[in-house]
């Protein structure tokens, strides 16, 4: 196999720059500059439009909002008022007898006023067809060309638009303009619709030139704008822009599409305002719709730190989700009581009982915090958890809240084994006090100590990559599948010892703890009964006992122990101990049924014990190394 870099170069060499690469770059640069000039004009243009529409109102409610339903939450209009309060003030003035505002009770008059004052169509007339449907009223407005005698003249059509109107607070309220739409842009988003960033927005139109489009921020997002280069292919399919970083919770925006070119229709309103931007342009048609731009999840993104507060009777979370970080999950535990409280993260199905689900002892496990706030960085995998707040003195659970750890950035490297065939097995050795572990990186320690590894196995640190964990997990990946994991713990002197080891059925992972310097000499009388030394020995586990009761292997040579499990329902393994010691020299793989072979490094001559860690009281044999 060639080295990886050579392989990558080989693959990358499928593409090569063309000889005219620089000339093409020059063309690209010129094209981009031209597009930017157009875009700058388009933005100025649509900003002017937004300004002339007296700014869109603030829409906080994402449900369908109808002016007629009543209340600030349901108010939805783009003109003339920009908020419910302003519209209500006008309503009160009209109710108090202000005759100058009487036109607001007439939908046609309101639509005409919008066309004249906002769009600058000074000669605007009502189209005879007025349709009322749904929750609003549409009024068609047109501006006859200057040379025409009237709008009915054949072949003489000026700009036109359908104006959507809605009434404030019920059937007797004043009219407001909710949206505006010309025939050029009949298909497109409707008022108040949610648009997910990155999604395609399609606007049906036959136009291929003189179309400008932009998103203009409204309300809290005012000042943010996003120009759009309209594809010149006769249809408009554009990608909804990213939200500004400071408004990831969503933005109300005006989606504005204009059909505009040099003309002579407008001398006031929008046309006049556009002149101030240096654009001698008239509006022939438009689509002006307030919509809400949202993230795909529909809600605000999860924070990097979750805050959990408990006062001894209730627990409050400031977020339902928290983002995993490269070094773990950050949670601020805030004890609002005047006595210590315990905080525990558990999987939801474990949280119903105050008892420790693992040990069965009363009271939850977890950490106990004095009153105040403490930042904790945990190694919790992405999942849903229950946060249990409990009282250490009584062991009673005070309250439970739900928190989901999410990891869209993919920081977490899963430690959990994924067994496709066979059952998983696990083992956890005991060490005598003062045992020193291996120095070095946890993955290196596992590589040196783990037996049963195959060529190509990847041994790597798992969990969170930048974690400073006291119990690092190392996983073994075989053929892209996580087939084993070893959790280590510190010996207090900078070394690592095995805490637990698990593997999938079919793997033969064992843990070689070490070779003792001074083993007990072999018993000369007993060794004869144990047979001649062999580098391949077989132990049969049956009725929770080992057979034979003694085997012999050559000193200093690696050997294989094959375990045949005939108990079926009881798993077994074969570990190697010094007589009377609780510290295994070698931890064998667990065999659920059938047979399993462990490879054991060479041992010094001596007498050892073969012990089944599952049923150590009965399944034992003697190992003679000579």
């Amino acid at each position, binding site marked *: *196999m060639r*080295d*990886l*870099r050579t*392989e*990558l*170069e080989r*693959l*990358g*060499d*499928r*593409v*090569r*720059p063309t000889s005219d*690469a*620089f000339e*093409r*770059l020059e063309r*690209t*640069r010129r094209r*981009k500059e031209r597009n930017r000039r157009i875009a700058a004009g388009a933005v100025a243009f649509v900003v002017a439009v937004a300004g002339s529409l007296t700014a869109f109102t603030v829409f906080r409610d994402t449900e369908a909002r109808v002016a007629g339903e009543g209340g600030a939450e349901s108010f939805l209009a783009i003109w003339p008022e920009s908020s419910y309060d302003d519209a209500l003030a006008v309503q009160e003035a009209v109710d108090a007898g202000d005759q100058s505002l009487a036109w607001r009770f007439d939908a046609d008059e309101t639509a005409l006023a919008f066309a004249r004052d906002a769009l600058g169509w000074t000669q605007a007339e009502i189209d005879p067809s007025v349709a009322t449907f749904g929750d609003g009223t549409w009024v068609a407005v047109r501006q006859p060309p200057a040379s025409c005698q009237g709008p009915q003249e054949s072949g003489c059509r000026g700009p036109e638009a359908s104006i959507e109107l809605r009434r404030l607070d019920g059937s007797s309220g004043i009219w407001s303009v909710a949206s505006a739409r010309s025939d050029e842009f009949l298909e497109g988003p409707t008022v108040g619709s949610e648009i*997910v*960033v*990155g*999604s*395609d927005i399609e606007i049906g139109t036959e136009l291929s030139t003189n179309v400008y489009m932009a998103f203009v921020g409204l309300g809290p997002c005012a000042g943010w704008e996003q120009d759009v280069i309209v594809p010149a292919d006769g249809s408009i399919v554009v*990608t909804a822009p990213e939200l500004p970083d400071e408004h990831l919770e969503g933005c109300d925006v005006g989606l504005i599409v204009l059909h505009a070119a040099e003309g002579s229709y407008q001398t006031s309103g929008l046309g006049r305002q556009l002149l101030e931007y240096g654009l001698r342009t008239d509006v022939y048609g438009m689509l002006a719709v307030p919509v809400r731009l949202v993230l*795909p999840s529909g809600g605000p993104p999860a924070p990097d730190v979750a805050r959990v507060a408990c006062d001894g009777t209730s627990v409050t979370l400031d977020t339902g989700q928290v983002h995993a970080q*490269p070094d773990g999950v950050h949670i601020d535990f805030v004890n609002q009581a005047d006595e210590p409280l315990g905080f525990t993260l558990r999987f939801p199905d474990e949280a119903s009982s105050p008892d420790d689900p693992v040990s069965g002892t009363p009271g939850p496990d977890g950490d106990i915090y004095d009153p105040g706030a403490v930042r904790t960085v945990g190694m919790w995998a992405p999942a849903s958890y229950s946060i249990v707040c409990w009282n250490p003195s009584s062991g009673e659970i005070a309250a439970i809240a739900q928190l989901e750890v999410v990891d869209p*950035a*993919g*920081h977490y*490297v899963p430690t959990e084994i994924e067994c496709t065939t066979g059952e998983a097995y696990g083992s956890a050795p005991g060490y005598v006090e003062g045992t020193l572990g291996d120095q070095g990186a946890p993955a*290196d320690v596992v*590589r040196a100590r*783990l037996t049963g*590894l195959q*060529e*190509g*196995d*990847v*041994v*790597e*640190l798992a969990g969170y*990559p*930048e974690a400073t964990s006291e119990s690092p997990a190392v996983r073994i*990946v075989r*053929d*892209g599948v996580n087939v084993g994991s070893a959790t280590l713990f510190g010996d207090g002197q900078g070394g690592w010892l095995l805490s637990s080891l698990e593997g999938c059925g079919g793997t033969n992972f064992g843990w070689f703890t070490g070779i003792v310097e001074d083993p007990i000499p072999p018993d000369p009388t007993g060794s004869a009964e144990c047979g001649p030394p062999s580098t391949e020995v077989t132990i049969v586990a049956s009725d929770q006992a080992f057979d034979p009761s003694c085997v012999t292997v050559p000193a200093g040579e690696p050997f294989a122990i094959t375990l045949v499990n005939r108990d079926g329902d009881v798993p077994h393994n074969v570990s190697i101990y010094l007589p009377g010691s609780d510290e295994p020299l070698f931890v064998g793989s667990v065999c659920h049924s059938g047979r399993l072979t462990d490879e054991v490094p060479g041992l010094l001559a001596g007498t050892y014990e073969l012990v089944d860690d599952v049923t150590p009281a009965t399944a034992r044999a003697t190992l003679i190394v000579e």
Partner: protein
Amino acid sequence: MQRMSRPASAVTQRESGRESERETAQPASFETFFEAQNPKLLRALYLLTGNAQEAEEIMQDTFVAVWERWDRVGSMESPAGYLYRTAMNRFRSRARRATRAAREVLGSTGSGDAFAAADERDALARALARLPDRQRAAIVLVELLGYGSDEAGEILGVKGVTVRSLASQARATLRTALEDRDA
């Protein structure tokens, strides 16, 4: 089990890369810089995107952006570092948009599989296409372009240790794919 050792070629590449940056920083002609970096960037972007056309587009975008700022970028200590940082930003921005668009359309988060479509017989291309974007970016910067993990971290906007972790995972996956192929 043998440990993954860092290929010596990556170290020498990294050092020679630094020298070439110094050379280009002094004469400071954008065209010279373009001619020197163009093939390398195109190759890296092809490995990142798995699509020759998209690689070409991002490359052009990136070089235009650098060109427009060449007065400032040309006098930087590492114009190439700026170039790759810009390219990576554009790649990630495109990847994000593409992922969201795919999610919208397909209702799933399928990652780009352009290499596999291009050549199903190439095990490396397939394995590369299946890597998460971040791992692919890390392995291309470290292994192909010879950046150290700290420098690659600066380009990607993450810590060096994260790059090491990402590159290590990617390397393991790719090596397994190559070993399977050669077996």
